């Protein structure tokens, strides 16, 4: 295990140290005194690399990341997993806005609450299917312009039936699937997203992903599954086709 101290370091110098450690074959790296350093693990390859972060990492954590597992023991800021390709990010606190923006593969697990535009334009291709699971609540524009992938919002600390996803949920959604554990008010749903029936395959999929999630945070899967889920999916893959097609 290698420990790298971020105290007082600009992100360029700091990330160069992290990168050098990975190049030298280090598989288990602890980053301490992190406070606002951006682009940690950006475009980093290595399925067997594990990076643990103590402190608040800066914007665009794991941007373009391609393999490693990143564990954050505190809150994270905006843009976690921006255009991430594969690997896993586990956040034990809250996270900011535009988490998983344009994400094309891999997994993001967040225990706490998140901000606005979570999963903005995330996408999938064949077996590359990104997954974002959030334990708390999300703000407005959850799943905006979503083109693929899976999002699960748990509302673990919310009362049964409480609105857990803000306004304008699924605006411009044209692919992928959202599962909300708990209620929401119909008028908060954008017209491009629609409630779809929950089928056996959906429960199977949720169980598969939540099993993994519960392991990361030491949670009880059966207790989480006690509450109903609502499935949101786009009724059209081209919601704006009529605007631009001749």
């Amino acid at each position, binding site marked *: 295990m290698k420990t790298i101290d971020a105290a007082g370091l600009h992100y360029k110098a700091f990330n160069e140290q992290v990168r050098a450690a990975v190049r030298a074959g280090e598989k288990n790296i602890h980053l301490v005194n992190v*406070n606002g350093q951006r682009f940690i693990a950006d475009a980093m390859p290595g399925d067997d690399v594990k990076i643990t972060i103590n402190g*608040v990492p800066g914007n665009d954590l794991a941007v373009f990341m391609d393999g490693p597992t990143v564990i954050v023991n505190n*809150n994270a800021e905006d843009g976690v997993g921006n255009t991430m390709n594969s690997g896993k990010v586990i956040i034990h606190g809250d996270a*900011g806005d535009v988490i998983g923006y344009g994400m094309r593969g891999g997994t993001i697990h967040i225990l706490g609450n998140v901000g606005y535009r979570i999963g903005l334009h995330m996408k999938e291709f064949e077996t590359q299917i990104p997954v974002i699971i959030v334990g708390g609540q999300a703000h*407005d524009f959850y799943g905006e312009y979503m083109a693929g992938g899976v999002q699960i919002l748990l509302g673990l600390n919310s009362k049964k039936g409480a609105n857990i996803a803000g306004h304008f949920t699924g605006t411009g959604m044209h692919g992928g699937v959202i599962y909300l554990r708990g209620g929401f008010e119909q008028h908060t749903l954008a017209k491009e997203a629609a409630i779809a029936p929950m089928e056996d395959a959906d429960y199977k999929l949720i169980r598969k992903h939540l099993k993994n999630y519960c392991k990361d945070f030491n949670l009880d899967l059966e207790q989480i599954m006690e509450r109903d889920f609502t499935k949101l999916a786009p009724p059209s893959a081209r919601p704006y086709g009529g605007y631009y097609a001749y």
Partner: protein
Amino acid sequence: MHYRFEKDMSACGLTGFISRNRNRVDGEAIMSSICNMDERSNGQGGGFAAYGIYPEHKDDYAFHMLYTDADAKEATEKYLDRHFLIIEDDELPTRKTAGIVDPPLIWRYFLNVDEEVLHMNACDEEDYVVNAVMFINAEIPGAFVMSSGKNMGAFKAVGFPGAVGRFYKLDEYKAWTWIAHGRFPTNTPGWWGGAHPFTLLDWSIVHNGEISSYGINKRYLEMFGYKATLMTDTEVTAYLFDMLLRRHKLSIEVATMAIAAPFWSQIDHLPEEERKALTALRQVYGSGLLNGPFAFILGHKDGMVGINDRIKLRPLVAAEKGDILYIANEEAAIREIASPDRVWMPTAGEPVIANLKPEKDIVKEAPSCIKV
């Protein structure tokens, strides 16, 4: 004082904190906090506002002035002498600092208004001061008012905010509210007068974003005597708050609903009474609606406010530790100077408000032990 007409990609960084118990600290903490977000600015503007810095002059209007040349200074001093009682004037203390080039003449005046003059002009004292600020900025070539409030001041320049703070010797001032900004100009030049904060009387505002309704807001404010002369969109928000909060006496909550009004589609689903109130507010203040992305910190004589645009197009985080409220773009900027008890992300369009305790309510606690 040079102008650079460039267009860059946008960002801007802002941070601020307030001690509700009016405990004053020097400028080191606010400089550390804003420097944590240097990545958000590009050296084309940095600035600070500080409250509680002039206790020995707390009843005087403190004018911080920028002059391009001696002529501007002479003309302004003639004007000030004719319309105000000049209690004291001196050069605003600065030190030579790497990264701050070509500074203008920077002067400070403590001013009072002669009551007889007010009476003769049938004018409210604060309106009188506002008129003076508008006149100087619009009519005296090369003279710009950096700030004009009581017991507060703005300090701004072209440069990274850390260098700006060193240049103005902020380590030698003590304030209970500190607000800071690092600029990344988007559509307007990076120049000394265009750095944030924008101020009027004791209002000061720092902004991350872009006011795309600037033209409408500017023309609207002109009808009420405000002149936008500083070539930066944020300027209109300082005047808008002065109008809504001071002249129209709206509460901060109501003023925020006017400038960051909910969408009609959201208003439609509100209970009857709220729906009616918001409909009226949007009708009356339609031209005061701020369009485009923003995160603001607004400072004033009684407190500090953080506000986001209604669809959260810029980051804003709040935190609390004891009597201190912190607001910044990024949590790390707060953690750079504090270990907060609570950190949260304010909801879009909902103001985070902290008010100073009235001076008479502050009990000075005797220290229970001496820390070594």
